[in-house]
């Protein structure tokens, strides 16, 4: 399924990045980082047209020969990025949506932790396992 899952904060700095293939992590860091460009653009357009746009799923941000990158932004401008293998053509939009929803719920649980200070790196076993589930 997913090969890389990332949570990006309001300030566009990474809060959590996990890749299936850790040796290639740098490449995914760059990929996720560059996808922020498109997320930002999409969010900007969103505010211009419909203020109460409840759709958090941003759809596919861009695709390369090997990967497809999907985005999702919460109302508090926390961005989730999921990188999928392009060869995996069977995945439907809805399934990606489900992945994001799971991720969002896991994230909501993380920030509900009274010891978590928003803006910090996410270090949570529960979140790790939720992410591994998405990536498995």
């Amino acid at each position, binding site marked *: 399924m997913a090969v890389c899952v990332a949570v990006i904060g309001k*300030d*566009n700095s*990474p809060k959590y990045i996990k890749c299936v293939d850790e040796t290639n992590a*740098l490449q995914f*860091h760059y990929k996720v*980082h*560059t996808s922020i*460009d498109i997320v930002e653009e999409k969010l900007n357009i969103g505010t211009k047209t419909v203020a109460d746009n409840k759709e958090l799923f941003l759809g596919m941000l861009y695709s390369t020969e090997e990967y497809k990158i999907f985005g999702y932004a919460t109302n508090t401008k926390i961005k989730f990025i999921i990188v999928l293998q392009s060869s995996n053509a069977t995945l439907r939009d809805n399934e990606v949506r489900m992945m994001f929803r799971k991720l969002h719920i896991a994230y909501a649980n993380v920030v509900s932790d009274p010891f978590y200070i*928003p803006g910090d790196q996410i270090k949570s076993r529960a979140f790790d396992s939720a992410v591994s589930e998405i990536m498995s």
Partner: protein
Amino acid sequence: MSDLPAELTARPLALIGMVGLDISNPIYHAIWDAFSNNRRPDGAAVQFKLFNSTHEFPTVKPKRNSYEWYIPKGILKRNWMNKYMNEVPAVIVIFYDLDWHDSQWNEKKMECASRVQSLRAALEGRSTKIAVVLVQKEAPPLPDTEDLVATERATALCAACELPNKMLYLLPYTDHLLGYTFRLEHVLYELAQNFYHQEYKIVKNHREQLNKTAHQYLFVRHQFKMAFLNELKQDQTTALKHYQQAYNNLLDIRMVDTNSLEIKTVASFINYKLCRLMFNLKLPKDAIAQFRSHTERFRTRTGPRELMFEHYAWLCSQYSTFAELFDEAIRQGLPAVQTQHPGYYFQLAATHATQRHNAYKELCDNVTEYPNPDPLAGEEKLEFYGQRPWRPGKLNAEPADMTREAAAIQALQYKEKYSVNHSMIIIGLLGNAISQFKMYRCPRMRRLLVVQMAEEYFNCKDYGKVLTLLMHMLWEYRNERWPVLLTDILKSALNAAYLSANIQDYLTLALEALGPTTVFSTERKSEIYQNIMNILQNKPPNPEPNLSEELKNSVIDNWMTQLNRKEPLIFKIDDDNMASFIDIRARFTKPSYSIKSTVTIEVFIRNIYNEDVEISKASVTITSPGYSAEFPITDSNMESLVFKAKESKKFLCQFEAPRNDSPELQISAISIYLGNESKCCIAIRFSSTGRDTNLLERMYPEIQQLRGGVFETIRPLTVTKIQPKESNVTVGVESKQPALLGEWFTFAITIFSDEDISNINISVNSVQDNSSEQLTELSLNMTEKQSSIAVDIDSIKADSSFQQTLYVRSHNTGEKTIEIKVSYLRQGQNRDSKITLYQFSIVKPFDVSTQFYTMLYEPLSKAFVDEPLFIMPHINCTSPWPIQIESTSIELASSMIMESESSTGENILKNSVLNNGETATDVYCIVPKTASEQPTSTGIFTIKWKRANDKASVVTSSSVTLSPLWVEEAVIGLQTKLPPHGWVLTPLCVSYFIKNHSDYLITLRLNIEASDAFMFSGHKQIDIHILPESEKKVEWILRPLVAGFVALPSLSLTVPADEEYKLNQGRLKEVIERSIPSHIYILPKPITLEE
């Protein structure tokens, strides 16, 4: 368009040949110019070409009757496109000078005919159309006239030339040359289109004879030809259709190593044409889809492994070509979006160029010499596109010659190694991509590409460029706070800095690498730290890891010379350019200091690195406009400058506040020195506010407070004020607040000084707020009113005071402010002044309310003319201070008179003292004399009063207007005469006086009702008539029967119905109610001795 042939990329234009135009002749030159140079933008898509009359056109191949035994040797012939674009004209035009009325008409006709014949011979076998244009000097005939000679001769000429009539054109060489050539151009263009259509038909017919097994190549070739001919015909839609078929046919061909290059080459041609046409036909989505499937299909068709780089080069050129096409289409007005623009294709092209580079490194390392004989010889002269020169026209079936094959591969590898600058290709593509991504607002993608570009510069050893690019990107990535990416860039930049022996950059990068935002391992960090220390001791740093030995050895000498210079090395590094492992905060201890006092700055230094760090010196730079100074920090508590891991320390920096024009001081920078200044030293300049680590804080300010840590909570205070010393003159004001309305309010100003001052001037003003008018008076002695007061005093000795009493009077209540300005001369100094604002409030001393009563002491709301009443002013004291009433007086309005003049005796309220809340009441009996429609004023009440508790206070007179009263005309006056009390069984006399105030005769029925308490004698019912302005008296004798407060027998007066206009019954009732007592006291009969 890297490797596509020019004939493919050029726009196909119908070729029209011209014969007989000798450009050296000015007339012909003008005609040629009109055709070829003065093309209008909307002109037909044609290309004119001059041919010599003896030109040899390409020979026509013999017609093939059957394709049955024909086996094609390749797909596309190299010369075919060029032939149709530049060599075989669709139409050829013979220019010939001939006027209808030429004297040598017959000779010239023959010459023209022979020229046509020879050209026809030259074009034997081609269906090129031949046209003749007669260049005429005569003016053309008018449109409606018919020149019989011309018609006849034209027919004759056509016959001689064996040309149809419509192929003969005239070009009058006159003023309107451009107009004629334009028209001619259109006609020729139509002829050309016919030609191409005809050619297209011919190719189409070939197709029917082909079979699928042997002629797969021909299927492609024919479709390609048809498409191209349609392009020449400018029918893009049909062309597109045929290109698509060509492409599909091409895909049907089985691909093996021997033909892969040819298929890929042709595929790239057709793909190029397809995409270009789709963009032209405004089908960008189709173009992108076509390109995607094209690359998708061929990505895996790598061809022979030894020539892997060729495949990547091919892919790279596919992407870059498409990107250029896309970019071209955008320039023609196609809108692009952020997620779909040429940048992506340039980027992918760069990626493939990199792969090509990698493949080349892997494959071509051992190739050192070029094989002989050259297996690549004759590459340019091959008959077909994309074939190998060492086995041209070979079909798949034939076995390959292995030795030639190997030599050829070696030759290609050699070429790849020595004649291709891979880095430059990659950098060029990245550059294109960067500019595209910049245009489509993808700043981060742009940064990534810049980093990749830097990597490529690193590969070609241009370390200076690497550093320039990376230093720039570091700054951007630092703001984004992606530690992994930052670390990656730092690694590359450190390598580049090391290899270029750029100490300044090397140190900057190394310092940053030790900072908190990187993810270097602890060991790596301590190595970096050691490298910094090495440099500080003039030793070269240890080489960066992962560098080849060869590279390492090349720079050691460079480092040695750099470090072993005579003069001390001092590197200044600005905190703006990096994020180091030292964190600084600085603040002034106070927001302001007075001149010549000691200014203290607290400097907090924290070591974020996880090992001990020693700094040699630290200093603070202070600036203000026109002033700048650097002060070293003093070890107030003898703390050493060695910082343990994560330790923060506080230092003080003290200096005397400077005296200068600008009152502000600012901490502009804090410098930290590492190393020995006499040898090698790093000076890091920090801005005083600390680095921009507070980004998080700006995002979630409330939450960041939860974070512990003393250092984070230090608020920098980087600006302070320097103020002159305050003077010690104090101005005090004493008074008994609040002031009372209208009184002269006393206040005393006391000026105290602890030094000798002289020439003192006190000026007192009341401060006006805009709304209220001038209602405040000031006075020195309560008699002269002044709007402002000035008092001059010669001097005040040290530690003594001066007092001045002033008075102020205000005529409205509220808050008042008085400004007291004291200006004085200090010893040996300038004039100084001090302004004190004194605010006080004014309240009313008392409220006066008025009440009215009838003679019966009933509250009264309405008075009647000539009926006496009581007026009672109540003085309700509201002043916080007791007030003493000196006297009261009333001045009645003109419509009122006093009931009796005798009451001029002592004032009853004289000397009475009222405290807050107490009320005093005065009473007067008055008689209204005239009636009015609305309430009339009753009079003015004047109270003379003073403060009771203040001996010095003076009498103030306050006047109050009493409440107005409603006075009505009374028609009937009724008066009762009654003894104050009666005794049981003792008769008493009651008389009623009824007075008529009106001018009418009034008739009244008087009726007295029986009462149990009285027996009485007199009329029980009587009608009385009262003359105008006269009075009637009615009497009864009552004999009370019971004792007590007994109701009198009630009297009623009624007006006859016909007289109601004179006197209202209701009014009459009111008169009775207020004028006749209802009860009387009856005392029990006194028991006397007589009885």
